């Protein structure tokens, strides 16, 4: 059994005194002792209430003084919203680029297919000796045009395929952006869990003020990198596209 506190010992003594006074028929004195007992109980309650109030006050203060928390709410969550909106733009662009390239390539393939079918029909007619000289002249002409144009047509298809290939670069860019937002969501989650624990009087792994410095130290080399820039919210000191990069490098002697 746990050791009794001074308050508990006093309460037990008063209770014993109360019983013995009642037994001995001293009702007036017993009432006085009961009043003292009630006072003891009330002061205990006030003490407990005081402690809870202080804890609550400290908790609120520690969250107020944690600028990481306000930074999350004021800038990083709105930033994340911008980033995710940019992901929608990038994926939308990529889908449209891909479909535009497909829509450009299909008619080229259709036209090649039709010319080949026509040539095949004419060639079979020629092989079975059913072709008139005028038709033959037309056939050689069609073949000449076909040979001249098909290489350009195939290059057109190839360039559309390359367009589709390059459009897939959205996955790398949006992947990097989403990874950053996931890190932010985890951080918000941890802070909320800490807040709930503090509110319910459970021990918190780390004081929120301490977490702030931990979070900074945990970031590895990759975590410090800027990653893809979001239009409209670019950082300071960035280059604006490949031409800027080339200029900067040539100024460095490249």
């Amino acid at each position, binding site marked *: 059994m746990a050791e009794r506190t001074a308050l508990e010992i006093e309460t037990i003594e008063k209770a014993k005194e109360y019983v013995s006074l009642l037994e001995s028929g001293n009702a007036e004195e017993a009432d006085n002792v009961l009043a003292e007992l009630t006072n003891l109980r009330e002061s205990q309650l006030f003490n407990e209430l005081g402690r809870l109030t202080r804890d609550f006050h400290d908790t609120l203060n520690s969250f107020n003084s944690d600028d990481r928390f306000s930074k999350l709410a004021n800038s990083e969550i709105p930033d994340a919203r911008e980033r995710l909106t940019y992901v929608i733009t990038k994926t939308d662009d990529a889908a449209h680029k891909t479909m535009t390239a497909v829509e450009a390539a299909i008619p080229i393939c259709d036209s090649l297919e039709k010319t080949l079918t026509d040539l095949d029909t004419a060639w079979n007619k020629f092989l079975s000796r059913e072709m008139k000289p005028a038709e033959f002249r037309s056939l050689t002409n069609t073949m000449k045009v076909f040979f001249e144009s098909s290489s350009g047509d195939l290059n057109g298809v190839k360039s559309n395929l*390359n367009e589709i*290939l*390059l459009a*897939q*670069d959205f*996955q*790398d*860019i949006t*992947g*990097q952006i989403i990874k950053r937002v996931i890190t932010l969501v985890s951080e918000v989650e941890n802070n909320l869990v800490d807040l709930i624990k503090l509110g319910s009087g459970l021990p918190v792994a780390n004081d929120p003020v301490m977490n702030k410095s931990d979070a900074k130290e945990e970031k590895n*080399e*990759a975590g410090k*990198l*800027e*990653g*893809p*820039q979001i239009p409209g919210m670019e*950082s300071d*000191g*960035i*280059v604006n*596209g*490949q031409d800027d*990069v080339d200029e*900067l*490098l040539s100024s*460095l002697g*490249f």
Partner: protein
Amino acid sequence: MNKDMKILIVDDFSTMRRIIKNLLRDLGFTNTSDADDGQSALPLLQSGNFDFLVTDWNMPGMTGIDLLKAIRSDPKLETLPVLMVTAEQKREQIIEAAQAGVNGYIVKPFTAITLKEKIDKIFERIESTGS
């Protein structure tokens, strides 16, 4: 420039590795391999007789800049041409890469033409200095 040269492509996103691989194939370079970060790339480079490296910067494990520094401090690899293809656009980072000895720097998103130009430039320079 030797079209049969052995090229290593390093990027943590497999889609980007495939894009670069396909663009290189379109330029006539078919002898390519790939790795997903610096840590897996370095042993391949040390044992694989590669002629050219195309690497991303931001990767878990070992970043592209650390890979570049490791290459430049390795007597066997110090002259390996390195092209960085990355979304990192900070001027100080580009300067850091230049100081670490990068041969070319491309920012994402990039075009097939940019990739061709940078590769041509890197090898023209190497051939003209005779190294």
